[in-house]
């Protein structure tokens, strides 16, 4: 189903490193299907103006599991992630085709409200971006705008449980009214995770959530991701192959806007089927 025209093939070869240009890139190898798919994407294409950023990608996100999207810079993995909760809607020149479903429901359907979609599919960004408000208000933000609560006690509870789930509560419980921007980088990122899970999403998209953090903070976040998969379906974009290996159950390898290989994480890292994948995980380029 991932038939790639020869014209496009040529284009890829021109822009890839010379040593790799011989490697055939025809269709995704491995297994893109999941038994219990939370989200399914079929034949996704994304264009920024004339430029094609995503080329015919299909994959499933398995429910209550972590799927890692890896690949060299500019391979389209972040762009792809942003399609999953329609964050690209805000970019005028961005055009998206293909089928995106969440629980068999088309998320690009006219009838589906992006506001509702984003409440169900939350997102954590590369750089910690807490609002310039108090820690409490940061976490309460989603609950407030979506009208999830009826009184202050409910809100207090949501804030507390969310902070607890994000593993931040014990560190900040005495200073909930301090500005969120005053926390350390790792704490800020966990605050952003708490803010995301406060609206009880079903899927959490993470765009290199630990790339701006030091190793200790990264380890804490990774642990957290592992715990969170009990309740949420998670897709994580990462630069670090070690991280993908540690936190994910499934890994998808992107290259030049195409999905090269997908499969169980241990398979990908131990027995990559595609030459490109092998090159990448063995560190020949990337």
């Amino acid at each position, binding site marked *: 189903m991932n038939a790639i025209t020869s014209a496009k093939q040529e284009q890829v070869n021109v822009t890839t490193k010379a040593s790799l240009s011989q490697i055939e890139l025809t269709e995704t190898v491995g297994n893109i299907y999941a038994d219990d798919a939370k989200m399914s994407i079929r034949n996704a294409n994304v264009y920024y103006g004339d430029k094609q950023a995503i080329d015919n990608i299909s994959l499933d996100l398995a*429910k*209550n599991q972590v799927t890692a999207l890896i690949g060299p810079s500019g391979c389209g993995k972040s762009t792809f992630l942003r399609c999953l909760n329609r964050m690209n809607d805000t970019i005028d020149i961005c055009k998206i085709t293909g089928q995106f479903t969440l*629980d*068999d*429901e088309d998320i690009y359907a006219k*009838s*589906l*409200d992006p*506001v*509702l979609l984003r*409440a*169900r599919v939350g997102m954590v960004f590369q750089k910690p971006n807490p609002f310039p408000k108090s820690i409490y208000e940061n976490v309460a933000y989603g609950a407030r*705008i*979506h*009208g*999830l609560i*009826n009184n202050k006690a*409910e809100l207090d*509870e*949501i804030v507390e*449980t*969310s902070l607890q789930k994000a593993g931040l509560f014990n560190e900040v419980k005495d200073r909930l009214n301090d500005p969120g921007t005053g926390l350390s980088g790792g704490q800020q990122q966990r605050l952003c995770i708490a803010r995301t*899970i406060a*609206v*009880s*999403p*079903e899927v959490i998209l993470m765009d290199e959530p630990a790339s701006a953090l030091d190793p200790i903070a990264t380890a804490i976040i990774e642990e957290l991701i592992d715990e969170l998969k009990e*309740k*949420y*379906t998670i897709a994580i974009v990462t630069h670090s192959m070690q991280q993908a290996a540690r936190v994910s159950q499934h890994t998808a390898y992107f290259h030049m806007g195409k999905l090269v290989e997908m499969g169980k994480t241990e398979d990908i890292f131990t027995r990559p089927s595609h030459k490109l994948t092998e090159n990448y995980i063995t560190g020949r380029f990337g």
Partner: protein
Amino acid sequence: MTKISKNSTVDSTNTNSALSTTEKVSLSLKKRHRKEKRFKRIGLFSVLFGFLLVVTLIGDITSKALPAFHQHWVKLEVNYQASWLNIDESTAQSLSAKQMKTANYRNVLKKSLYQMFPEVSGRKDKRQLAKLFSSNAEFTLKDNLIAAPLLFDKQTQIWVRLDDDVDSYLKEEFPLGEAGLRISQKQAQWVAQLIASERIESRFNFSFFTASDSREPELAGIKGALMGTILTMFVTLLLSFPLGVAGALYLEEFAPKNRFTDFIEININNLAAVPSIVFGLLGLAVIINLFGLPRSAPLVGGIVLTLMTLPTIIIASRAAIKAVPPSIREAALGLGASKMQVTFSHVLPQAMPGIITGAIIGVAQALGETAPLLMIGMVAFIVDVPTSIVDSATVLPVQIFLWADSPERAFLAKTSAAILVLLSLLMVINLSATMLRSKFEKK
């Protein structure tokens, strides 16, 4: 629209309610989208309101200004009778220039009018009749005779201006012969008579551009004010451009980072926000009273406006100088040029378009300024067109202020017309700045 799948993982934090997040969110969605729409609409209305203000302002002034560009003239039957002119018939054969200059033209005008309107009698009516014509009419008669002395003692037809009240009356389109504005019933009938005999004609008002200020609206023009504006802007540009460029060059290229430099910067930033009228006080107290420069002069006006616009020009020039890539400086310095040589022969030419744009914007700001010039006495009623920077003068914005204060109805149109001239000037200046900038940016 929201299908909730059975196996969706609904978080259990919402303890006191059985509803899922999806359901809860969708409950308030309609309301939120309504709010969103309302907010967007308010924003759009605000922008449209801004447009409306621009259109109203320009439209209102334009519509008020249009009548000022044409003017009604009347053709009179004038008889330069020697006796009416108070010239002795015996000397009439060799009419001297002095005699022609001092002759009684008012009398000629009056007598000629009575001849044209034989039915008018009584002092009051006669005076009313004379009031239909511009007070300048007798001088028109005089100029005419001096230009053509052969007309002496003869009957001729001469075009003169109507009085401003009659002019306004005609422009407002009252039913012919009806009283209106400051026109009585009788006067209205005389005007109707003149129109019937095809003696009244509407002409383009050239004198608005060629005449100076006058107490009589039908004679007043903007030439004096325009000249004053040109002289004042000349002084402003002559002073503010070199000063601004030199100041910017120092601050951007040479100034060491120290207290003195900081102090200058703070001064510049704050001066940019000082109300213009305070610069007027400075001009009055220091430049006029302390240094003894003449009041009302474009020289003083130019100095005050220079001090006012200098911060603008310095800030713009600094931005332009900063935009010159450092590589140019390094290359020239590397060739052994001194810092001063690099600055004047490489940095300054590169930054010039930006600096000129900034200077133009500064001058545009100065061009519309009124308040500080009131303080230094450029507000006097001045009939003579100024010819040097130390003559008493007024400028276009002040002329607008003066006319707007005048009670005569015809000045309303004059004021609006003067505003149109001022706005057109500003538009030309700003357009040239924009064009310069875009030309520069394309490079």
